[in-house]
């Protein structure tokens, strides 16, 4: 019952952050269409190791679309041709026999390459550190049910909070902007009374950090929303802008 395909891979290889990169071509035979994209890369790596060559380095961990560790720019799309999935959830049934598949790292000034397909997304941590939290210490907080929160707000906050920090939005954006990522966190917290208190300050600090770290401006192209594996909506950017303006007004 199993279907298999033969494919050709064009993979970005780069020995280190400063090294010059290039594409390398590989052929893979009899890949089961039930295998995931990363399992296909495992098979490639097993073959490379058996030949005594260095395997292709790529990021991954949970392999179920939640940790945000996997990346890959596949045939010109972050996380590849399937919609609403991360690369680790992509399956080979989305590809055709004989197809050439081009695999590149995220390309953006904010995410320098470390090795082959692995990039440094430490900038996202720095943006969160700039204000992506509610400033409470452990202990001494009110009962969880002390403050009712309308279900629609809680649900909307949950949707924004689904961002996995993968960086596909940045990779998809011609300006290399991180607005969708930043806005998701700002929105989640602004929608909840616990986070509302610091809403304006948070927006200002996170946006300032994003600018400082070399991410581009948002010109509302919407490419980020299309490629986001978690369906984070552009409406969050509008909410971020409102918070940001109110911060400016308070200055």
């Amino acid at each position, binding site marked *: 019952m199993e279907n298999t395909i033969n494919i050709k891979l064009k993979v970005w290889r780069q020995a*280190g952050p400063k090294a010059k990169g290039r594409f390398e071509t590989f052929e893979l035979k009899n890949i089961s269409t*039930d*295998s*995931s994209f*990363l*399992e296909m890369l*495992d*098979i490639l790596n*097993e073959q*490379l*190791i*058996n030949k*005594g060559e*260095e*395997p292709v*380095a790529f*990021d991954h*961990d*949970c*392999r179920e679309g*939640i*940790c*945000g*560790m996997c990346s890959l720019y596949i045939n010109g799309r972050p996380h590849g041709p*399937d919609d609403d*999935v991360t690369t680790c*959830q992509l*399956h080979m049934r989305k590809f055709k026999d004989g197809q050439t598949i081009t695999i590149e790292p995220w390309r953006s000034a904010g995410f320098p390459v470390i*090795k082959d397909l692995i990039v*440094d*997304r*430490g900038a996202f*941590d720095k943006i*969160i550190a*700039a204000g*992506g*939290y*509610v*400033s*409470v*210490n*452990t*202990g001494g*907080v009110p009962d*969880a*049910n002390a403050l*009712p*929160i309308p*279900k629609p707000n*809680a*649900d909307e*906050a*949950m949707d924004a*909070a*689904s961002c996995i*920090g993968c960086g596909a939005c940045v990779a998809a954006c011609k300006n290399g902007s991180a607005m969708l990522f930043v806005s998701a966190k700002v929105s*989640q917290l602004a929608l*909840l009374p*616990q*986070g509302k208190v610091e809403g304006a300050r948070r927006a200002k600090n996170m946006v300032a950090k994003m600018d400082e770290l070399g991410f581009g401006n948002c010109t509302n192209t919407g490419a980020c929303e299309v490629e986001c594996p978690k369906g984070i909506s552009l409406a969050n950017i509008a909410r971020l802008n409102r918070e940001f303006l109110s911060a400016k007004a308070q200055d």
Partner: protein
Amino acid sequence: MVKIDAKIPEGPLADKWKNYKNNQKLVNPANKRKLDIIVVGTGLAGASAAASFGEMGFNVKTFTIQDSPRRAHSIAAQGGINAAKNYPNDGDSIYRLFYDTVKGGDYRAREANVHRLAEVSNSIIDQCVAQGVPFAREYGGLLDNRSFGGAQVSRTFYAKGQTGQQLLLGAYQALMRQVNEGNVELHTRNEMVEIVMVDGKARGIISRNLVTGKLERHFAHAVVLATGGYGNTFFLSTNAMGSNGSAAMKAYKKGAMFANPCFAQIHPTCIPVHGEFQSKLTLMSESLRNDGRIWVPKKKEDAEAIRAGKLKPTEIAEEDRDYYLERRYPAFGNLVPRDVASRAAKERCDAGFGVGTTGLAVYLDFKSAIDRLGRDAIEARYGNLFQMYEKIVDDNPYETPMMIYPAIHYTMGGIWVDYELQTSVPGLFAAGEANFSDHGANRLGASALMQGLADGYFVLPYTIQNYLADDIATPRMTTEEKEFEEAENAAKGRFEKLMSINGEKSVDSLHKELGLVMWDFVGMARNKEGLQEAIEKIQAIKKEFWSNVRIPGSTGGMNVELEKASRLADFIEIGELMARDALHREESCGGHFREEYQTEEGEALRQDDKFAYSGCWAYKGEDQEPELNKEELTFDVVKLVQRNYK
């Protein structure tokens, strides 16, 4: 054998934690600034501990192998987190949560620890809500609860099917706030590879920077390991690819005992294995068992026809289906604890009633729930899980039942800790899944998240002070000291040895060999001969590994294969320890099922007179047999009975 002192405080069970806190030593604010703590791991346990230590004023360094603390394996937890809030007013209480956890763990956990866990559970929910964790709510604006495997009350809080994600992001954000304030130093893509001991105390670590390949030295007055579980010993598991047991093994070799290694949990609802290239198994949240009904065909010929692709599950008439959990356990039905549900699935499949192409699968069917509640309600509850299933299997679970099979999921065993979460090495603490503490022989659903956050937010911040209070006069050491140099050299020697083997087999191929041995002999059902055979096989794999593994590249720079090899070397030793522990424990309890010890109906049969203890293994040197020590368990409050979910 050494005498084990768990340092359980005096007083009645319900007062022990209060008494402890009232009498413990504290560190004043000026002294806190002079004390350094290393937290290895940034999952729920590590991130919550590191953030809390930072807020208290300690100097914290934290380490993670991923590129960000937010990616720790905790992120993947789906179902929820327990607490004894009793918001639904269905009769829950701290006592009941405590009791359920001890019973669920098949009476192999320490009463005092479990009671403390239940006590602090409510504070966790308060804390998370204050951080902006978007838990599910009802229309009235208050928090929603659901019931979860093994409980008759609804005490599970959840955030869609992404509870672990939201809790971890809450802890991560608290951690990043401390990074911003300069109290926590964050080291990502940085793996602890050795513990540094000075005068019998843990005083730091050697880590490997996974980007540059360089070894680094870090000093601290105390070290916390929050490095997760060792389920990946089995190669295929629901754990993330990077989850590993290496930090626990480093601690073990420095004198920390490893307790109950054989207590591993097999989760009943995972997507079945489909091919040899498979890299991991995906969990389908247990919450699905609230509305899904588990069945296999009643007739063997139907099962055979399904396996051959000649019959569809939807074509099997109602009366020809065997809802075996509802049949065997009418009181709990599809909600029996995980070990019971897993073994029941194996029993049906071994008897020839399994479905799927391999015959190693059972159905989880939502048809009656959809008929009763409507598709929209089911979609609201499980939409993302259904989508995930469809993406992987290419089948629509709204129309045809899901297929599931048990898989390794969680390890109850781990580094032995006392009541203070201190290991048998002074100054070395262990938290979260990495320690063995609270779940006995079986963990209840939604209790790992609770334990990780309890350890990190509400236990360690107290107990570590009790230790550090005696250390306020200990100055910071320079890492030029000989102990650091020796530890670094040991780590360096090990990596060089690995690189020099230059054999024929890839790391993954050897890991798969280990995984098969584990699954076949140390998996869901174990017996004496099988375990003895497993030990021999694992020792052979160890030999093969150290003489024939092939690792391309060099020790300098990023080398993923070298990282994997180093972890596999430790998994091999954990595997052997699991088999030894399973062999010695001549009883069945929780996740440990010995075929020789079962009731006539095939239920687990404990031997309380002989095995009501935690088996704590001490390292005795390379190629020496480890020594078994026993922490006797005394039950002052709970009465031991055979678990009964009928």
